[in-house]
């Protein structure tokens, strides 16, 4: 069929379909709701699942008063607290997140009570963030309402916290300096361990890098895979699987992924640790408490613990990087995860980082570091 004939045929079919639609319009029996589509939220509380879905669909639309109407214990929970719980505060990652259409499943139901598991997916700038909430619901009148946890958001009492940690500033060589005058030396960093492994269809390079200098360093690790024929198979860097700012004698793990490259094709790896001098502050100190390997509700292995911000400044977006070692002290995996709540001074914040199930049995030891993003990090 020529192009002209095809165009005529498509036009004719379109005209026929428009005519049919105009002459015999369909009679809709009701509104069909498609999760995630359109701009209006689903609103029903006929069943526990519908009530939970309605609540979070209104949250997704940021229709907070409507979402709050699905809360059964309004005498205990303030709308503002619910908003803070779901929307986040203090410029945390949650405040930059958007709830996507979620999955709801009734775990348990009686005539008057029910438990619904909500598998929520938040879209964030650093990737999807999954949250599982088991919601308690009660029948109230003809409908179901969610019993929202009444815990208030932790707050830091007004106080003065003296902070007198060191801060480093840098003055680089200027155009007026003598010929031969030195510039400030880049920090000396060293890769202390490195391992190449495979994860699915990816080659993964991981290890640890040490700032062995007495000044802060901004570090990055690049790796080049060389194939058996001498050709370059790929060049990648550690991106956010590293703590970029390292204080003196600080060690950071790093992980570099090469998607679609098989380990058997690799002959050698060229590593390039780069460092540059940056202004930095020795504050804040974040303690990582009670770290333990656990199996979560979904049967996945996770490293869980608590972060405690020991400084007086809010850490807006904490980023946890975990290094897992085998019984010989070798790095066998590096995993990371963002915490979607801000770290307030002195208030413990739980975190969890995944452990690959196939490696969980080999994990003999682990180490967690916390990378942090705070507003005005270098301005204060």
């Amino acid at each position, binding site marked *: 069929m020529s192009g002209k004939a095809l165009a005529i045929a498509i036009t004719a079919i379109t005209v026929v379909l428009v005519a049919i639609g105009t002459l015999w319009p369909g009679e809709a029996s009701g509104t069909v709701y498609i999760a995630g589509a359109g701009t209006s939220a689903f609103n029903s509380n006929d069943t526990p699942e519908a009530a939970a879905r309605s609540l979070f669909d209104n949250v997704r639309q940021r229709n907070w008063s409507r979402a709050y109407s699905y809360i059964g214990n309004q005498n205990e929970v303030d709308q503002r607290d619910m908003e803070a719980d779901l929307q986040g505060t203090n410029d945390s990652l949650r405040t930059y997140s958007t709830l996507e259409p979620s999955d709801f499943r009734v775990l348990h139901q009686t005539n008057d009570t029910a438990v619904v598991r909500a598998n929520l997916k938040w879209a964030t700038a650093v990737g999807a963030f999954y949250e599982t909430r088991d919601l308690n619901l009660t029948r109230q009148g003809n409908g179901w309402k969610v019993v929202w946890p009444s815990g208030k958001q932790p707050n830091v009492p007004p106080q003065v916290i003296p902070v*007198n*940690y*060191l801060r*480093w500033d840098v003055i680089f060589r200027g155009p007026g300096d*003598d*010929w*031969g*005058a*030195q*510039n*400030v*030396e880049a920090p000396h960093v060293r890769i*202390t361990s490195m391992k190449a492994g495979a994860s699915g269809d990816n080659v993964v390079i991981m290890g640890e890098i*040490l700032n*062995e*200098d*007495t*000044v*802060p360093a901004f570090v990055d690790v690049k790796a080049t895979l060389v194939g058996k024929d001498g050709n370059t198979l790929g060049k990648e860097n550690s991106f956010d699987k590293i703590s970029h700012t390292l*204080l*003196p*004698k*600080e*060690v950071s793990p790093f992980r570099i992924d090469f998607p679609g490259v098989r380990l058997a094709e690799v002959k050698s790896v060229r590593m390039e640790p780069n460092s540059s001098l940056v202004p930095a502050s*020795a504050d804040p*100190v*974040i*303690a*990582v*408490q*009670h*770290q*333990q390997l656990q199996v979560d509700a979904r049967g996945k292995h996770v490293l869980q*613990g608590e972060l405690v911000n*020991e400084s007086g400044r809010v850490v807006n977006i904490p980023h946890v990087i975990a290094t897992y070692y085998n019984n010989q002290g070798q790095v066998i995996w590096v995993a990371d995860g963002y915490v979607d709540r801000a770290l307030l001074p002195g208030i413990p914040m739980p975190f969890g980082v995944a452990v690959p199930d196939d490696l969980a049995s080999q994990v003999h030891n*682990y*180490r*967690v*570091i916390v990378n942090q993003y705070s507003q005005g990090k270098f301005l204060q």
Partner: protein
Amino acid sequence: MTRKLLVGFLLLVACMLAEDAARGVELQLPKEVVAGADMAVPTMGSGSATFYLVGPAGTVKRAIKLGQEIQIKGEDVRAAGRYVAVITGDNGGSGGFWVMPAKVANVGFIAQPSRLPVALPGAVSGVVYAFDHFHNLVYQPQPVKFELSVAGAPTTTRTVATKDGVAWTRMDSGRKQGAAQFDAEVDGISARRVVQQVAGDPCNLRMKAQRTPMGILVETDPIRDCSGNPVPDGTIVTFTSVDSKGTTTVDARIKRDVASAQLPAADRATISVASGVVLGNEIRIGGAQ
């Protein structure tokens, strides 16, 4: 640089051709002059002619009266190297002479690195380029005195002769931290660079622990490197406590020579300390130490 060399070479060729054109009469020129010094070239005959002076950094063209001396100012012979003088015409001639660098007036001094740990053998390097007032490299051998000193420690001195205008040395970093003055002196002209000598890795890292109402307070002894220098503030010291609730780590910063951290309370805990790749002692709380 290559372009300059090419231009210089072409000028030289042009002068040699001009020299031939001047029918090979040799001008009375000195064999060597010092850069920047005035000089005079006698001429013979009478009438007018054109004088050319071609050097490595430029050419001078001047109308002259034959029979009178040609005055060449010092500024025309500032660049060291081979010069060719040519007088055109029937009574002309040509000749060449060398302009030698003047005495050392400037020192180019490159010191590396600008910051390094103490007590490293051969880690400090210094390179000296000796220049005269006109930025000519002074390639006659000159003694260069290198001196590395830090307050409160003996000074290290070494004398090296320049070769082709360059002298270099390697020195050990001292055992005392501080801003070391690295001096180079040639013929009374000196240049100074600062090499920051910093403490090395912590040595004999030790801590103590005590129970407090808040938990367990751990604090190191004053942290020093193996030469006795205090390790600088801001250096990371990691305390790790393992108890029944799991592992707790705190990356503490050294402040006024010591690092401390508050660890969670525990009936029994094993606490260790490390800084970089250096491990310290281990303490068992609620058991034998």
